[in-house]
């Protein structure tokens, strides 16, 4: 996963090293190497949070929290652990811990809709906004699965390990999430703008599993 930020990414030696190699260096005391991993994961993690919470400021804060946790718990990183799975585990836990302290109030706000790339027709822009809205109205667990599998492009096997269930369960849940997304999307299409706000009571953060980081 390559980030777009400049900085240490320009160092060819660093660029050629895998995430795991870099993390092992961080673990062994080279804290500054974490900057390369930050550059690689800053944008994906930010988008993971932004699509889940719909809150830009919170997403920025949570990304910082993830890297602070990595520093604090760097000694728990073991050789052979896939770094991406490890960092997403930390990211999930950071979010769950955050929402344990304050209940989420997820609601779609127009400014949350990212600007669609220039040149897109107006209809596509509208569809994208509607879809984003539908996504935000899904129960948290379903939204998280779609974000992980579709936007973060994690394979089902990795997601299964992350959320602590079987691969077939993930696939079934993905299908159900898409079916529900379809229903909500239709409801939003049928309803006048701003009046199709579904109840978001079901937005309960998923339970923590795995590492205590």
């Amino acid at each position, binding site marked *: 996963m390559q980030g777009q930020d400049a900085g240490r990414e320009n160092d060819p030696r660093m660029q050629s090293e895998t995430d795991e190699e870099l993390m092992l260096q961080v673990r062994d005391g080279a804290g500054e190497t974490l900057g390369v991993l930050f550059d690689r994961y800053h*944008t994906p993690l930010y988008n993971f949070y932004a699509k889940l919470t719909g809150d830009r400021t919170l997403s920025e804060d949570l990304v910082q929290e993830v890297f602070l946790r990595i520093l604090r718990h760097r000694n728990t990183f073991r050789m052979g652990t896939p770094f991406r799975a490890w960092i997403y585990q930390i990211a999930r836990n950071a979010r769950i811990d955050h929402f344990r302290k304050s209940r989420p109030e997820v609601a779609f706000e127009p400014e949350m809709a990212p600007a669609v790339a220039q040149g897109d027709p107006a209809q596509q822009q509208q569809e994208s906004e509607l879809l984003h809205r539908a996504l935000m109205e899904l129960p948290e667990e379903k939204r998280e699965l779609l974000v992980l599998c579709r936007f973060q492009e994690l394979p089902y096997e990795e997601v299964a390990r992350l959320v602590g269930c079987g691969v077939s369960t993930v696939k079934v849940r993905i299908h159900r999430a898409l079916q529900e997304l379809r229903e909500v999307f239709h409801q939003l299409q049928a309803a006048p703008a701003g009046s199709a706000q579904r109840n978001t009571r079901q937005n309960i953060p998923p339970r923590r599993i795995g590492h205590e980081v």
Partner: protein
Amino acid sequence: MKCEEIAGLLPDYLQEGLGAEQKKIVERHLESCVQCNEVAGLWKKLALIPDEQPSAAGRERFEAMLHAYQTGRGEEGSTRRVAADSGKSGWSVFQWLRSPVGAVAWSIALVALGTYLGMQIGAAKSGSQDLAAMHTELTNMRQMVALSMLQQQSASQRLEGVSWTRREGQLDPQVLSALMHTLRYDQSVDVRLAALDALSRHAGQPQVKQTVVDALQEQQSPLVQVALIDQLVEWRDAEAAPRLEKLRETPNLNTTVRQRADWAISKLN
């Protein structure tokens, strides 16, 4: 193929994880089923929601956090290292002295020292100041060994600790106190009996008699109770008679202990 069957294949189809044959089956179904087609279409449409770029301030915040963390760690690390280094040597020596190996080493060292002193005293046959100082040192060391061994996990080592106290005429208050504690609270009956035997030589100390009298009520083992009664009789401690009376009134008291208490009361009065 039915929608339910396609549902099992669709997720893999979406992540392009199907073989050519299964892919064709799904695609044929999607052409004829509006609902499944919409579901698959939504997956593709989700790509319409583009990724956002986080603010550049995020990188600066990260740099600041990393710097602060490393600075904090550096200071904390050096403080910890100093504390660990200073604590380590003292602690490990203390631990070693308390370990069984340490106790054995103490014993050997003391025997060697004792032999040397004995030879010196025998040769000199006089109490020079140096010899007096060495004698005091030897006594102190023996008492330290006794104290250390009384705190060991193993009952046999505690027993040995009790026997070390017998070698001294005058016990250090700390050792005496440890011995009294052993009499009252040691888990092993043998060690408690040995402690009582060692304490019997220190009847001159008022707190020793008091401890033995108090132990009468506390002890549950008939063996120890009988030994305590015998000790009080041996000391001819008339003040213990009322406590013995109280003891024999204790419900469910062992018959032998009660008879022994009766005998002791008659002796003391």
